């Protein structure tokens, strides 16, 4: 009888060990469009990943340089196939692939950055209100420019980029009605050679402040070399332009990634769509996804004004697009005509028009 009990007990114990997989860890996968060494977009996502890696009971895997398009399907699928529970896909171009793979693996959670399609209940999208940073940049540029010509390196004519240009110019015109912007479309998010060429061309054409909506520090370095000013993008680019750098819009994914990873680990993950700016709710709560980094190379009063503006945007005293906002042809924007205090999210999401004061056409 004793023998039987011992045998049963050991069988149960071994059985218990066998039933529990050796890895009870939550595995989180990241799909990057470029290398963390780009010191821009992917670099900041990798910083976010490191924040997740530091959590208890969670391990991370990163696939870098994954081409957007059909190749991404394979990369994301392999992450799902190797037992990952949560997968972050960090570029717009992964949208189709993310949704396709999500349909095949309903037990895996997917988070897609800057996307807007959630075809399955296990897909969540998230993005940042980068345009809030552009407002601050607009104020600074208006004061710092002497030639009244701003050079803007833009990637693709999509709402996110157009929002940024509009927010920038709306604020800049408030402080310096004579300022003008010249926009070069490079049709790429990351191509240091192209960005450098565009920056040089803009400078040759008279711009003395460079703004970019692309991801490499090339333009900053060109600006430094030419002795003019520039704004950084995606990560803190001050070290690329010791005398040129004014401020950078820094992506801060840490708190969002940590929140979501913990939710998966603890089983509380739910589908949602998140759009954070300087703060999580635009009302002064904790840091959201946008941080302004390394103010410098400007007079103290400009810096004070800029920081005050940043605080006002963060705690909700100011909105980035306060009414009245006039469209390029002079008409009042629909939201303002309808009596709103500022442009609504609905308008911002699909923004494909310039505000009054920008003398250019959006490439169609």
């Amino acid at each position, binding site marked *: 009888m004793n023998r039987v009990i011992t045998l049963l007990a050991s069988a149960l114990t071994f059985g218990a060990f066998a039933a529990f997989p050796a890895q009870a860890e939550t595995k989180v996968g990241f799909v990057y469009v470029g290398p963390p060494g780009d010191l821009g977009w992917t670099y900041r996502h990798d910083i976010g990943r490191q924040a997740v890696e530091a959590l208890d009971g969670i391990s991370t895997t990163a696939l*870098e340089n994954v081409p957007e398009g059909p190749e991404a399907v394979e990369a994301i699928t392999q992450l799902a196939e190797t037992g990952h529970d949560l997968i972050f896909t960090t570029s717009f171009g992964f949208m189709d692939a993310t949704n396709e793979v999500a349909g095949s693996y309903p037990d895996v959670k997917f988070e897609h950055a800057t996307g807007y399609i959630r075809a399955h209940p296990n897909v969540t999208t998230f993005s940042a209100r980068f345009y809030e940073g552009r407002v601050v940049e607009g104020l600074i540029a208006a004061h710092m420019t002497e030639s009244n010509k701003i050079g803007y390196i833009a990637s693709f004519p999509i709402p996110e980029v157009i929002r940024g240009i509009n927010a920038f110019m709306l604020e800049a015109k408030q402080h310096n009605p004579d300022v003008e912007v*010249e926009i*070069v479309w490079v049709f790429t998010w990351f191509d*240091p*050679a192209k960005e450098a060429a*565009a920056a040089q061309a803009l400078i*040759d054409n008279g711009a003395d402040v460079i703004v970019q909506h692309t991801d490499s520090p090339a333009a900053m*370095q*060109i600006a430094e070399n030419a002795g003019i000013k520039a704004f950084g993008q995606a990560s803190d680019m001050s070290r690329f332009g010791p005398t040129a750098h004014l401020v950078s819009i820094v992506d801060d994914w840490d708190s969002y990634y940590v929140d979501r990873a913990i939710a998966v680990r603890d089983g509380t993950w739910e589908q949602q769509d998140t759009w954070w700016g300087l703060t999580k709710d635009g009302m002064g709560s904790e840091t959201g996804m946008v941080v302004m980094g390394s103010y410098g190379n400007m007079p103290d009063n400009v810096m004070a004004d800029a920081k005050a503006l940043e605080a006002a945007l963060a705690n909700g005293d100011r909105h980035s697009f306060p009414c009245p906002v006039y469209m390029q042809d002079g008409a009042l924007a629909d939201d303002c005509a309808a009596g709103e205090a500022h442009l609504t999210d609905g308008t911002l999401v699909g923004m494909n028009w310039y505000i009054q004061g920008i003398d250019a056409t959006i490439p*169609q």
Partner: protein
Amino acid sequence: MSDLVIQILAASMLLATPLLLAAIGELVVEKSGVINLGVEGMMLIGGLAGFIALYQLQTSTCTMLIGDVCFTAENSVNQFQYIGSLVVAALVGAMAAALFGFLTQYFRANHIAAGLGLTVLGAGLSNSLGGNFFGVDYTAAIVASVPPLFPENWSEVPVLGPLLFSQNLLVPFSFLMLVAVWFFLNRTRAGLVVRAVGENHHSAYALGYPVILVRMMTIMFGGAMAGLAGAFIVIAQIAPKWTEGITVGKGWLALALILFATWRPGRVLLGAYLFGIVLALEPRLKAIFSNMSLEISYFLTALPYIVPVVVLVLISRNPVMIRRNAPASLGQSFEPRS
């Protein structure tokens, strides 16, 4: 207006020099009867090697090293470090070419296939090593820019300043090399041997010239020059940075250049600068005519690749000139008849 012309010329020098360097090297290779299509691959791996060397040299003398990045006050490297990195680039390029040389000369492999294989190898190796070479991620490495060869204030001189005095040392080096190669091929005995091997390797062998050895040496020279060209592309930017595929087809342009120049060094110079001007025009025209139509904008982007085709067609219409200048045993494997 003249300001713009000077800017375009200065930019075109920057763009033409790697083409010139690679083309001079490959010219010698082809004069000896071998086609090495792996120029693009050699440029990539040589460029990465030069970048790694420059980075290591810079950080070894760095006074303020934070993590893997150097934050010195001077923010520039000196010429000796630059030359050191160039030597490394040339050596690595030569080694990559030697691999091709062994395959084609000793193992009688098909030249075209081996050359394409070298391109793929160079691209693949540089991509994987660039991300992680002994623990350092070179896509994140920042290297200070290389100062021009001449003193700072010389570049203020109008016209000649930006054109000549603010260029880094590989630019005058490329001109010197062109003259040296011309002299070598046309005025020295060794150059005569090279040309003889390229014209008729059987006769050359019969005369006692070591055909395979000569070819190996020209192949390695071509590789060294391609490595220098790659290093120039990476390092001579205002902000030297390594990215995958940084050469964007310049290796192939160099090959087209030689064909266009019908294997004559003087014409190689002309062609390199023609291509350089076309490459330099593209972003500037786009910035000046900022409201140009999409069609024209894309046409400009494709222009650096359409021009070589047009130029090749024009040249090739005169087959006599090609036959006169092309090495007669170009691309043929040498098989010694015992």
